[in-house]
């Protein structure tokens, strides 16, 4: 994007509320990307004649958790509405959603941007039901579609932000922040590939300095954060080119083609579909008790933003490290448990070992905190060994490798592998003396001003010590003996 135009982007996020049963019937919520089709279906979610919806209270509670975490105003009375359109994945011919009076509105969340923190307004949060899934088949020259209703009636939360995102980075950070909140409050595992969270950016551009909105296009079918970024970048460039060439952006829904890296028109909003919304007569208005809302509010965990601030002030972490650690509740919990268990290691040291070597191993293996073969206590114990100079960094990495692969206790791994750090001054002085004696020329050259030779001599000492010598002590001893030699 050139500096001539400002991107104006809002997000519409659909998140599955991962309750036990569906929104309006007792069918279980199952992973619709694996397993048999149509195993979690009943007359209600199949839209059979005479069937009626009944509200799943757990889904309302989940929705309230998110709405409260997003600082929304809760409408104690909200209305379900029918959104009508024909499609084979929509059994009733209408979707039960919320329209004029949503569950919650007027909230906000904080995100990081290049210009610092930004507060993004949340327009509304409402509950609706998911549709089924169609699979289009072409076999032996015959084309047909298969309908799977496992997903039909699964509770969905729709979160709509105001169009206040002005860069691809802000879009990404906003999506991450929303995902993080959904995971923190325990309603959604944040898996985009499985469609548990679907992000649809609406994108427009306007000349820098203008306060009017340009015509927007909506992008669908984004099933990863990467495609969200790519599609947004692509669409911004496409709109700019179009406008620069004297054209106009058409209001439309675009589909992202991940393989080709382009957006394509799905349907034009010029012939806008008329959903004929009206209040769902089968459901009385949804009334939530104020006391219940307050109970849910009190039960909310510390949210990522607050936790980040606390990590910075309490543990002295850098903003970047704090961000990385709080992004997932399990990681932050793991970190805090380690800090609590540590005896000599401080919080910063533990943060370094967590976000550095341990994240490295986890990323490489594609493993989450919950899958680790060792616990926070073991990480704390390892960092304690480091802090107490009982093992040096190289040794500690080796211990971490063993913990990661097999689990166990850091102390016994250190012992079993003979990784205890040698800090005995007599032993170190003897090794240093031997090295200087064996390399008189290098010692003399160093004293004559060739400073890098110190590293050579250091390396020789470490070699003698089998890598286990306390590196700081070795350096000190080398300096001491060399300076004595130079006098």
């Amino acid at each position, binding site marked *: 994007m050139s500096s001539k135009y400002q991107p104006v982007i809002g997000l519409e996020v659909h998140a599955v509320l991962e309750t036990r049963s569906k929104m309006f019937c007792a069918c279980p919520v199952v992973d619709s990307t694996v397993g048999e089709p149509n195993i979690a279906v009943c*007359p209600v979610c*199949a*839209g*059979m*004649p*005479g*069937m*009626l*919806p*009944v*509200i799943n209270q757990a889904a309302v509670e989940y929705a309230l958790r998110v709405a409260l975490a997003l600082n929304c105003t809760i409408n104690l009375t909200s209305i379900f509405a*029918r959104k*009508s359109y*024909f499609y*084979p994945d929509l*059994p*009733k*011919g*209408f979707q039960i959603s919320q329209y004029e009076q949503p569950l919650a509105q007027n909230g906000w969340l904080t995100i990081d941007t290049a210009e610092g923190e930004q507060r993004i307004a949340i327009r509304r949060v409402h509950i609706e039901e998911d549709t089924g899934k169609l699979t289009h088949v072409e076999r032996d020259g015959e084309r047909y579609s298969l*309908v799977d209703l496992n997903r039909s009636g699964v509770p969905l939360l729709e979160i709509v932000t105001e169009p206040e995102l002005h860069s691809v980075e802000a879009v990404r950070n906003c999506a991450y922040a929303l995902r993080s909140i959904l995971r923190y409050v325990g309603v959604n595992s944040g898996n985009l590939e499985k469609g548990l969270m679907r992000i649809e950016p609406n994108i427009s551009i306007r000349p820098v300095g203008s306060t009017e909105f340009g015509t927007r296009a909506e992008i669908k079918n984004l099933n990863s954060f990467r495609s969200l970024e790519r599609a947004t970048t692509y669409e911004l460039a496409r709109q700019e080119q179009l406008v620069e060439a004297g054209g106009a952006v058409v209001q439309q829904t675009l589909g992202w083609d991940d393989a080709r890296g382009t957006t394509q028109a799905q349907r034009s909003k010029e012939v*806008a579909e*008329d959903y*004929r*919304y*009206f209040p769902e*007569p*089968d*459901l*009385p208005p949804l009334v939530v008790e104020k006391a219940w809302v307050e109970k849910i509010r009190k039960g909310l965990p510390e949210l990522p933003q607050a936790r980040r601030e606390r990590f910075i002030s309490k543990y002295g972490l850098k903003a970047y490290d704090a961000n990385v650690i709080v992004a997932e509740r399990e990681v932050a919990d793991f970190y805090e448990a380690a800090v609590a268990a540590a005896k000599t290691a401080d919080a910063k040291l533990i943060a370094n070992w967590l976000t550095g070597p341990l994240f490295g191993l986890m990323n490489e293996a594609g493993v989450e905190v919950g899958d680790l073969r060792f616990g926070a206590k073991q990480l704390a114990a390892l960092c304690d060994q480091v802090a107490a100079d009982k093992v040096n960094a190289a040794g500690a990495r080796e211990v971490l490798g063993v913990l990661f692969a097999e689990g166990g206790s850091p102390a016994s791994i250190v012992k079993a592998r003979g990784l205890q750090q040698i800090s005995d001054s007599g032993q170190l002085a003897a090794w240093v003396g031997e090295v200087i004696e064996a390399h008189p020329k290098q010692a003399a050259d160093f004293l004559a001003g060739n400073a890098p030779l110190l590293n050579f001599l250091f390396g020789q000492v470490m070699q003698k010590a089998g890598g286990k010598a306390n590196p700081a002590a070795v350096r000190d001893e080398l300096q001491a003996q060399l300076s004595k030699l130079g006098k």
Partner: protein
Amino acid sequence: MSGGLHELSAKQALAGLRAGKISSVELTRAYLERIEQHNPRLNAYLYVAAESALQAAAAADKQYAKARRSKGGKLPALLGLPIAVKDVLAVAGMPATCGSRILENFVPSYTATSVQRLLDAGVVVLGKTNTDEFAMGSSTENSAYGVTLNPWDETRVPGGSSGGSAAAVAGRLAPVALGTDTGGSVRQPAAFCGLTGLKTTYGRVSRYGLVAFGSSLDTVGVLARDAADAGLILKVMGGYDPQDATTVEKTPKLEKPSGKSLKGLRIGVPKEYFIEGLSAEVENGVREGIRQLEVLGAKAVPVSLPHTEYALPVYYIIAPAEASANLARFDGVRYGLRVAQDDLIEMFKRSRGAGFGPEVKRRIMIGSYALSAGYYDAYYGQAQKVRALIRRDFDNVFKKVDLIAAPSAPSTAFRIGAHGNDPLEMYLEDVFTLPANLAGVPGLCVCAGFDGQGLPIGLQMLGPHFADERLLAVAAAYQKVTDWHKQAPAL
């Protein structure tokens, strides 16, 4: 006692069953014989469940015999009583066509709560009765499976949409039947067939398993020979259902008159129900009925429901709007009629085009239009506002009176085809019954005499929300001193 078994009311039949004087198999067989004899002509039933009915009857007899042997044990309230069920109510294993081609071969796997509660109480389902397609109509002429004839005069309609149930009970092809009332579909056919028809308070009887027409208006009701029989059915099928979010958890308790005297009962007579277009004979019959209630001790006072004239237009926006969404599920994808096409939209169009009849199509179009962007506020939004005024009219009047008495329909049963060319004329049939549905209040129709042609005249009574029992009690008192309800057509 055989030969006259079909003449017993439900209450009498149950007494006979309990006393061991008759068996459920005999009773059921008597009705099946009546059905076999008269249904080919009357077309009251669309489906007769002879085999399963006789099985259920035999099981009921066994249970009675066992109870008699062991001298005691509580028996289900309606054990062995045959009933007929309107075809818009689901009964597992029986077709539920709703009078429509689009559901010609549809057999639900589930049973409506109202029917299930009756089954749990021991009833024997004789079969499914004819209805205007998806309950849209006032004559059963809109059924895809042919009109039902009025047993009082077979050239006339039985009313609708629960015309099949009404004809079945009037013709003694069932002791009692379930109907549904969205705009008068129980009360108007009850009037045309000389029956006691109860439209229950909205929220009193579960709609689960009732194929929806206008969800905020639909109620399950009863067509019976007298108030006592209707009460037996209501008692069993009413009450909160966790599967219908619009049923009420606790029914407010209302005092009810007991015995013969109606002393202290205040009856409102709304002037808006005695208007041009109401036949003189019907008006006379209704006024005579009110006089009879006064003889019993009630006091009749004139009242006004000023927004009555708007009920018809309001109803014909709200009901079709809800119907347009309710009927969207009939798309040929999962069940019902499918006209296979290569193109999806074409399949939807052809399936629905072939499956729905003209009145249903008309209402889907009216409803879709009323809900369209740009028209919503002027039609649906406005109708909801006026609906609130109509409801308030009733609230106000019920502060002053205990119930309202009025005609059920502008005329007695009309000839088949009389309103064939003009849907508006047909819509006017419901002008006296629609307001109760818009307000959600209960209504009851009793036979209050016959016109010069021997056709029954209906007296309608409306009560406050959840005053269903009060209406039944007043009707019962009325029926103690009159015998209109005991008349039966000669078949």
